Structure formats: C-alpha cells, structure tokens
C-alpha cells in the first residue's frame, strides 16, 4: 500500500521538478515582459535532443551537456531578438500566436536538422535502483531533484544577491522606474529569455535519461509548465515551483490510482478547478481593476 504510494510520489516529484523548472521559465519571462512564451517547452526539447545527439556523435557527456545548454540559450536569445522584440506592445493574442509560431518553427527545424526519432541519454550515475521502504528510486531521479534544487537556489541567489538580478526584478515591478534609474530594459528582456531557455534545457537534459525525447516532446512539457505557472499565480516564482510539484504529484497519483490514460488530462483538470475558484491562481496577486 504505502510502497505503491511512495512509488507514485517519487515519479510525481521527478516530473514535478521538471514542470517546476518549466513553470519558473514562464514566470521569469512573464515578469520581464508580460509575455507567455508558448515555446518554453521547446527549450526543454532542444536541451534533450541536442545533448542526446551530441553524445551519440561521440562528444563526451559533460561537454555535450554544456553545448546543449548553450545552444538552447542561443535559441532563447534569438527568439527574443527576432520575434518578441519587434512585436513589443502588441495584443496578448498576437504575442500568443507569435510564440506558438516560434514553437512550431523550432519543432520543424529540429525535425530537419536532427531527426524524428526518439533519443535518450545514458543515466548520469548508473541504473541500479535504490530501495526506499519498499519503493524503488532511480538514481537519475535523484539527479533531477538535486539539479532542480540547485537551479532554484541559484536563481534565488541571482535575483536577490546580484545587481543584475535585482535589476531584473525591479523591471518586473515597474518598467518605467527601472528605466529611469538606468536599468537596460532590453538587456533584461534578453537575459530573461536566456535564463528561461537555460532552465528549460537543464530540465530537458536531466530528464532525458528517464523519459526519452523527440522533436514533439516539448509540447506537453511546455503546457504542463504553463499550468504550473498559472496554478502558482503568473509571475510568482515560488508559486510556479509549488505549482509544478502539485501538478507532477497529483498527476502521478491519479494515473496510479485512477487511470493512467488520463494522466495528461489531470494537470488541466486541476488548473480548471483552481481557476474556477481562484481566478489569479493559488498565490497570484489579487487586484481590483482601477478605473
């Protein structure tokens, strides 16, 4: 009984950690630009696909991973520069279409530059399962937890302890004021996309040994990351992390105890349910519209 529960919990935490990273990616870009980047899932996919392809081509794994992260960040920067920046001040719907267009473009490009096959990476430290009170935990899951935790702590440090990070936060609170004190808003936007791409790609790299990846893998991961971000309240980093973990765990429990076919639907059922009662997510700012 308990062992099964623990097993579901482990698997939920693993995917939840990835959703949390993706959700954080949404939150960072949203804070900097009020854009919801529907291509967020593509960063995850690119991270996984690029590292797997490089490893398969004989590049040593650490180098392959670093390269994959850099590629993904470059894509993020290019996306901001060529697709988002020229359309500043456009409608919400317009920007949604642009980022969805970007995601379709990236999928198409990956399919051509790489291929349509499924890829995997070797697990970072072997595949001997660890027994925990009757349940088993794959070492790679530990890697996922640890890397996600490191990323989150690193981000916290970046936003609270470095000048540039603080400047980014300031921009999200008040763009004009930030501009007045000399924060380069353009630079902040670029950095937010690079950072989100990095988060996504890291998630993609660490999870690929567990889930495999192909050019379409980003769609669902991206949408789940979006639900994590909305669940936590858009623009709330901590909320996105908790949102991601909730989505991951509930999804795993539901697919274990209810129906595995509906696994992918669970995230959206939760999100609808939460939005019905809390239109700004769990931790979102509740504002009265000023008129």
């Amino acid at each position: 009984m308990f062992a099964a529960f623990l097993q579901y919990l482990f698997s939920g935490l693993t995917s939840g950690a990835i959703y949390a990273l993706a959700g954080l990616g949404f939150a960072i870009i949203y804070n900097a630009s009020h854009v919801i980047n529907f291509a967020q899932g593509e960063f995850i996919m690119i991270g996984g696909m690029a590292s797997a392809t490089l490893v398969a081509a004989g590049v040593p794994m650490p180098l392959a991973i670093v390269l994959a992260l850099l590629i993904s960040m470059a894509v993020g920067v290019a996306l901001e520069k060529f697709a988002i920046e020229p359309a500043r001040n456009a409608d919400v719907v317009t920007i949604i279409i642009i980022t969805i267009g970007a995601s379709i473009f990236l999928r198409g490009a990956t399919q051509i530059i790489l291929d349509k096959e499924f890829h995997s990476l070797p697990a970072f430290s072997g595949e001997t399962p660890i027994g925990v009170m009757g349940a088993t935990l794959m070492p790679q899951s530990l890697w996922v937890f640890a890397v996600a935790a490191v990323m989150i702590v690193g981000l916290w440090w970046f936003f609270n302890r470095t000048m540039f990070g603080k400047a980014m936060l300031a921009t999200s609170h008040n763009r004009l004021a930030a501009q007045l004190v000399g924060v380069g808003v353009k630079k902040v936007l670029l950095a937010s996309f690079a950072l989100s791409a990095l988060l996504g790609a890291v998630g993609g790299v660490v999870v690929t040994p567990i889930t495999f990846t192909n050019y379409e893998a980003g769609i669902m991961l991206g949408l789940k990351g979006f639900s994590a971000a909305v669940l936590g309240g858009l623009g709330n980093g901590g909320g996105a992390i908790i949102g991601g973990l909730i989505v991951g765990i509930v999804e795993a429990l539901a697919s274990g105890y209810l129906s595995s076919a509906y696994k992918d639907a669970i995230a959206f059922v939760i999100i609808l349910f939460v939005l019905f009662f809390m239109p700004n997510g769990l931790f979102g700012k509740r504002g009265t519209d000023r008129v």
Partner: protein
Amino acid sequence: MALLAIVVAAAPIGFTNSYFYDVGVNAMFNAIVCVGLNLLIGYAGQISLGHAGFFALGAYGSALLTTMYNVPPIGALTISALVVGLLAFVVGRPILKLKGHYLAMATLGIGIIIHIVLKTESKFTGGPDGMSLDNFKMLGFTVMGDRMWYWVAGVLLILAVWLALNLIDSPVGRALRAVHGSEVGAEVVGVDTSSYKVLVFVVSAVFASVVGSLFAHKNGFITPDIGSFFGSVHLVTMVVLGGMASVFGAVVGAVILTLLPQVLASVEQYEAMILGVIMMGTMIFMPKGLLPSLLAKLKSREAGR
C-alpha cells in the same frame, strides 16, 4: 458579401478534378468555424485555445448518434450542437471571468481534456484509431461526393457570413464589441458583460460543432486528432492571420491556411517551419491581420492621391 458569393460560385471554373473540390470544402468548413470564432476573439476580445475540441465533439456526436443509435444525420447534428452549446454555456460561465493568459490557459485545458477523452474512451470512439460513419442523408436525399459537398459548404459559408454580419451590426453585436473595448464602460450603460461573453462563446462553439458534424459525414472517417491542441491553434491562427474583427478576414485566413499545406506539398518536410515563419511574420509586420492591413494600405493610398 456579393463578392464572396461570386468567388464561391466561380472558383470551381478552375477546378480540374475532385481533389480541388475536396480542398475547397475543407477551406470553407474552416472558414465557417473561423467566422464563429472571430465573433469571440476578434469582436468580443476573448481568446479561446480550445475550439477544436468543440469541433471534434460535434464530429463525434454525429458519428456516435448515427452509427450507434440510428439517429438521422440532421437530428444527430442538432443534438450534438445543442449538447456542445450547453457544455460551452456551463464551462463558459466560470472561465469567461478570467482574462488574458488565464483565459487562454483555461480554454486550452478544456480543449485538451476533450481531446484526451475522445482518445481514451475507445469503447465509444474507437480511440486513436478513429471511427467511421455514413453519408449525410436528409429527406431521402444523400449528400455525397466532393462536388455536392462543395455547394453545400458554399451555401453554409455564405449563410454564416450573413449571420455574422447581421450580428455585428446589431444591438447585441455592439454590446459584444463594447466588451472588447472596455468592460466597465459597457457595464455602466447597462450591458451585462458576463452574459454576453458566455453568449458569444456558446455561439462560436455551436458553429464549430455544426461544422464538425458535417466534416465527419463528408470525410466518412474521423480521429481524435481533429480536436488536438494544434487544431485549436490552427483555428486561432486563421482568425488572427486573416484579420481579427473582420468577418471576411477570417474567411481569407481560413482559406490561406487550408491551402498552404497543399501548396507546400512538394517541400513537405519544411511545412512546419514555413507555417511557423508565416505565423510570426504576419503578427510582427501586420498585427491587425492580412485583410485589415491591406485595406488600410489601399485606403491610405487613395487618400494620398
């Protein structure tokens, strides 16, 4: 309007085989859905990333009712449309309180849930393998063959455009557009904004459902993927590409995006990339969409003379 009728009537002159008719029917089906969706997105300013779900429900409703319960096609179409309308009404109330990205998320969720249900309940829907159904029969008359469908779709498209144009230039339509302009501004002169948002959501869902039913009969075979997230995105792209808040823009967008894959058939592997570039490019350089941007250009050129 007359121009549209002429185009619909004259297009077949260039059709050399039934394949052209087939593409034409699909283009017009999409156009009808987009005319409905545009009322929601373009005029009332509320996004939906889940309308392919309503389309698929219409299609599956017709398929189930005609094959399992022997309901006549027109009855199945009507019942499906009523059920979809009711569903849209029930979910519309709470979700249309949401704004912007939250609304996008909620409608997207509804679309995906519908898609997954259709894929999973294989007892009824045949699962991912899809299900087949018969021709559309009514009053002893069978609609079959691409040519006949072409004329049916053409008439329906013109009807849909007529209805949409009527609505937009009416007290109800002005109230809808006012919701887009300023909700509180509309409220203080007596517009019950939430009811109007739900109303237009239901109307656009019913448009999608009816076309879904017809599409199912025409194709004779449907799979759950007609209701995928990508399907919804495709519909929204048609609307936005052609021109939000422009009935004819929606038609133009639907026709272009339906024809695109046919044109790109020779470079099939690049199709996704090209579609992506078109989506980004139009939105960056013509954020108002093709038709309104072109019309504005024409206008300013005339004014310049």
